[in-house]
């Protein structure tokens, strides 16, 4: 059998075992539920846009089309309802309508329960101004429709001298989501690699396996198999999260930037996973009991935690922070920081390139080091093997 065939066989076992694992299924489901929960809670708390119901009495009916088009032009969601005036007044009192328009197009009156919301006030203000403008244009002998076309075609072009200091709310949401998700994904899947390595040592099955395959084949097969499942997991979680956010209206799907954030998330997950899972495999091969896994993997875990904490604590307030910019170009922290900066739209192309190149260079180096430590330590059961001994022993 070729090396490729061997590695594929090992990876295949990892994939089927992991997909069948209850812990894995439950963890994935819980993360998805949390994301959906956040989206729903945000919606219920009124953070997101919702519809405003406007009743229109027969006298004001000619304005219906103008209200609908004006509202959509300035991103306010308005539903119009044709009602009789007395019924409408009752509905406003009952809270079923946010506002009722009465009177004629020339003199609009708005009936509300207590006060008129800012969004709706802007819409109605614009409609009233537009009606007044149309009347003046007609009085001067012009064509209101042509004027309207000319007006809507006029726009300013914006030249930014510096990138924006503050990210928009949506970028911020996607950025924080990215940060949490990539951290969770790297920790969960890295730990799965570590536990898998130790499980083989504890059960001594590694002795049988290494009678048939080389140590590096076993390590790579495990990393690839768990990585494939991890990639599917991250993609599923990200898509489920975005779908929930869009469905509840928490996020407006500006499809390109959201898709970009997801693609970057997956790319950085793959790179981060490749680097960190190798480190996890190497340190895990030093110990023989599940109880020791946590202690052995702590140093690697800390590197992930530092990147994550810096990311969530500094980036939302200061997307352009020079400290984070520098850290995000160091291969150790790049996987936890760069995807967040990308989601916030705060990373210049050259920094992204430096950071990508760094990780791509580090991975083969890590592979070499991890394979050496793993090969020397994985058959030594009993007491924890010191890193130095595992490195030196031939």
């Amino acid at each position, binding site marked *: *059998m070729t090396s490729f065939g*061997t590695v594929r*066989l*090992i990876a295949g*076992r990892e994939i089927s*075992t992991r997909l069948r694992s209850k812990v894995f299924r439950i963890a994935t489901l819980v993360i998805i539920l949390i994301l959906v929960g956040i989206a729903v809670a945000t919606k219920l708390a009124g953070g997101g846009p919702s519809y405003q119901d406007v009743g229109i009495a027969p006298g004001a009916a000619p304005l219906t089309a103008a209200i609908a088009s004006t509202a959509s032009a300035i991103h306010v969601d308005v539903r119009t309802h044709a009602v009789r005036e007395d019924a409408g007044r009752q509905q406003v009192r009952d809270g079923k309508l946010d506002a009722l328009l009465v009177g004629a197009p020339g003199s609009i009156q708005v009936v509300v329960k207590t006060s008129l919301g800012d969004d709706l006030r802007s819409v109605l203000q614009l409609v009233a101004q537009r009606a007044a403008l149309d009347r003046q244009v007609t009085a001067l002998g012009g064509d209101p429709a042509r004027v309207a076309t000319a007006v809507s075609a006029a726009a300013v072009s914006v030249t930014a001298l510096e990138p924006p200091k503050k990210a928009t709310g949506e970028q911020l949401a996607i950025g924080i989501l990215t940060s949490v998700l990539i951290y969770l994904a790297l920790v969960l899947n890295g730990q799965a690699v570590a536990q898998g390595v130790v*499980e*083989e040592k504890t*059960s*001594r*099955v*590694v*002795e*049988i*396996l*290494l*009678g*048939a*395959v*080389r140590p590096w084949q076993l390590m790579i097969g495990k990393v690839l198999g768990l990585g494939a499942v991890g990639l599917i997991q991250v993609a599923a979680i990200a898509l489920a999260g975005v779908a929930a956010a869009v469905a509840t209206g928490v996020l407006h799907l500006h499809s390109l930037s959201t898709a970009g954030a997801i693609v970057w998330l997956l790319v950085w997950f793959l790179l981060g996973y490749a680097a960190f899972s190798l480190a996890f495999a190497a340190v895990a091969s030093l110990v023989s009991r599940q109880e020791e896994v946590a202690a052995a993997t702590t140093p690697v875990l800390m590197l992930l935690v530092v990147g994550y904490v810096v990311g969530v604590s500094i980036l939302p307030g200061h997307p352009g922070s020079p400290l984070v910019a520098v850290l995000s170009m160091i291969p150790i922290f790049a996987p936890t920081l760069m995807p967040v900066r990308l989601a916030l739209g705060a990373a210049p192309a050259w920094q992204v390139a430096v950071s990508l190149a760094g990780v791509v260079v580090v991975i083969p180096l890590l592979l070499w080091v991890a394979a050496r430590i793993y090969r020397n330590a994985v*058959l030594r*059961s009993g007491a924890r093997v010191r890193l130095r001994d595992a490195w030196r022993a*031939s």
Partner: protein
Amino acid sequence: MERQLEIDRVSKRYGDVVALHGITFEVRAGEIFGLVGSNGAGKTTAMRVALGVLEADAGAVRWDRRPIGPETRRRIGYMPEERGLYPRMRVGEQLVYLARLHGMTPAAARAAVDRWVERLGVAGRRDDDVIKLSLGNQQRVQLAAALAHDPEILVLDEPFSGLDPVAVDVMSGVLRDQADAGVPVMFSSHQLDLVQRLCDRVGIVRQGRMVAVGTVDELRDQGQDELIVRAPAAPPGWAAQLPGVTVVEESGAGTRLALHDGADDQAILRAALETGPVHEFTRARPSLTDLFRHIVSAKDEEGERK
């Protein structure tokens, strides 16, 4: 020359501990070779080196006069001392997986696994996780894992420990069949009566060296014969001054004497008759157990004197 597995002057140290000290022996195709020795003598290390799981510091392991490489390694069936299987993987699936890792096609692996679980009496448990099986059944599965890929060489570390008498018979039968089919079978054990019964040749390991190796008969010939004398009227210590023997054990049931080389057993009989009636006078070759005790204790004294 027939094919044989040669362990040639192999040395291995773990830090300051020397586990193997230039150990040399060979296992011929078609024979069962028993490796015996005290705990920590180096049996397991020798097997791991033979298997290629451990790399020797010096020396060589050859099969059919060629150093063992990765391809030969896959043709070895191995049963580690501390049993090794994935606890939460089904028996059948696991055996097929291991057979495929050893290079079998999926179809051949499934057929071989069917055959072996049937032969070893665990066919009914193939859909259970390994962890749900009794220790004895886990051991049968472990043997199936060593055999499923139709190995050219068998290396088994303590295959009999913890087995009930029926399972011991099954295991013995399988090992004999494999040897008859031309496979060199090497196993270690502390059950010396079993080794004496089953093995064609035996090697005794002590502190990383092979101190005695040969057929069971050859080894027993090396040791001193024993005399068992039952003379009820003999006073205690009657045999202590006799020439050519050493008292091994004296009790109400009789006296056990080690007979030195060239000593005259008939003189001992006459001396016994002088004390009164003699109800039993037996000359016996030492058992492997006696021999093992003798070799290990003699060398220990030697070692302490240095």
